Structures are given as structure tokens and as C-alpha cells.
């Protein structure tokens, strides 16, 4: 993330003046991209893809949308790198552990189903 952003360098987290990063044009652009990605998701929903592939694509697009929201709307893009490193790696690690624990069993059970 952008700890090198001039607007935040050396600033305290509690100082409101450090949180002016981002312009109305930037926020509108992010909003439009979020709408476009949502439109793509709705379009994809009507393609007859296997559920596993569909779920993977939809969650992938949702991850892109969530990155846009966290980075720009929640301002993490403009915060110090320390905040990013405190929050994101641990969260991603926990989510990965959940995925590792749950999904192999899910796929295995589907394979065990009587055909």
C-alpha cells in the first residue's frame, strides 16, 4: 500500500487533515467500476456454468470489488503501511485456513455422491 503517499507521510492517525486523500472524481470512478463489476456478475449468473466454476468466478469478482471498497472508500490505500500490515495479512491467513479446512471435504463429499 502507499505509505509513500505525500498526503499521509509522517502524519498521526488521529489527525483529520491526513484523511483528505481521494477526490470526488476518484470516488465516482470507483463507484462506476463497482457498478460495472456488479453488472458483469449479473450477466454471468445467466450463463449455464457448473456451480463450482460459477462460484469461483463470482467470488473472484467480489474480491476485486472488496479490494476497491477497502482501498478507496475505507481509505486503506492512503493509510500508513503499518495499518495495512496489521490488518490484512492476519485476516487473509485466517480466511485461507477456513478455505483449506472446508473446501477439500466439500469436493470430496461431492465425489462420494452416488451417481
Amino acid at each position, binding site marked *: 500500500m502507499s505509505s509513500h503517499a505525500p498526503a499521509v507521510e509522517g502524519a498521526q492517525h488521529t489527525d483529520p487533515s491526513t484523511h483528505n486523500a481521494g477526490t470526488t472524481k476518484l470516488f465516482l470512478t470507483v463507484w462506476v467500476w463497482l457498478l460495472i463489476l456488479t453488472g458483469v456478475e449479473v450477466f454471468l449468473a445467466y450463463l449455464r456454468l457448473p456451480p463450482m466454476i460459477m462460484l469461483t468466478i463470482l467470488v473472484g469478482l467480489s474480491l476485486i470489488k472488496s479490494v476497491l471498497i477497502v482501498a478507496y472508500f475505507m481509505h486503506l490505500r492512503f493509510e500508513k503501511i503499518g495499518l495495512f500490515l496489521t490488518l490484512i495479512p492476519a485476516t487473509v491467513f485466517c480466511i485461507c485456513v*477456513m478455505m483449506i479446512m472446508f*473446501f477439500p471435504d466439500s469436493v470430496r463429499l461431492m465425489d462420494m455422491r452416488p451417481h
Partner: protein
Amino acid sequence: MWLFIVSDTLTFTALLVSYAYVRLANPDWPRPFEIWPAIAKSSAMTLILLSSSLTMVLGVAAANRGDRKATLRYLMWTMFFGAAFVVIHATEWYTLIVVEKVTPWSNPWGAPLFGASFFGITGLHMTHVTIGVVYLAVIAWGFGKDKFSAIDVEVSGLYWHFVDLVWMFVFPMLYLMSVDLTKH
């Protein structure tokens, strides 16, 4: 607030991963959502929630500029969008429960877990939105009275964007994975 958001992220992740598990493991998972009303309504709800995030981030920017009037105006719009989301969602629930006779343990279409998954996840999210509207109302009142600062507005914005973020997963996973393909 960030730490709360991380913990809430893991709560919703556990629910959504569990949902993905039962969704993929059940070949007879219901696909009841037609374009109208379910997909049209849920798409509108997504547009509303994304718009509320836009007004919220503009409100935070206005608060940081010290523009009290603009901040309150944007917060009011955000609350309006949030309330609209809850009202539309409530009509969705009404249709499912009263008209379609869906309960957490049964439905007319297939895997009984559909109702529990749908009501559990969307219910928890709707609770978050409702609490968010009340939270923003308190912040708007306090900011208008000079009791709360721009930081308080920004922190409430973090919560609101998180609620929006969760819906970005709930909408495709619960609605779009259950669209009715028989008429297309």
C-alpha cells in the same frame, strides 16, 4: 473499528464458506430467483448500497474539510439509502415467507438448508444495515451539535463501507448462484 471489522469479516466469512460448502454439496439446491422480482430487487439493493457508500465517502471528505452542512446532507442521503435497502429487503423476505412458504427448515423447491442459509446470512447482514442507519443517525446528530468530530464520522464510515463490502459477497453467492435458469 478496524479490529471490529476484522472480527466481523471472519464471522461473515465463516457463514459464507459454510454456505458455499452446502451449496456445492447439494445437487438439488433450489434456484427460485427469477429476474422479476428477486434479481431485479437484489440488483437494485446492490445499486442502493453502493450509492450509499459513495455518499458516505463524500460525507467523510466533507467532514474532513470542515463543511458541516455538506457532511450532514451526505449522511442523510446515506441513511436514506440504508433505510431503502432494509425496506426492499423486508419485502423480499415477506414474499419468501408468506407467499412462497419458505422457512429456515423447509421450502417447496429442494434442499431444506436453503431457507436457513438465506435467512441466516441475509438476516445478519440486514441487522448490520439497520444498526448502521441508527449509528449514522447518532453520529449525524452529534456532528451537527458539535459533540462529535470528523474522526467520528470517518469511523462510522468504516463501519458503513464494511456493510457494503459484505453485501458484495452476499448478493452473488446467495442470489446469483440461485437464479432460475429454466426460462432462459
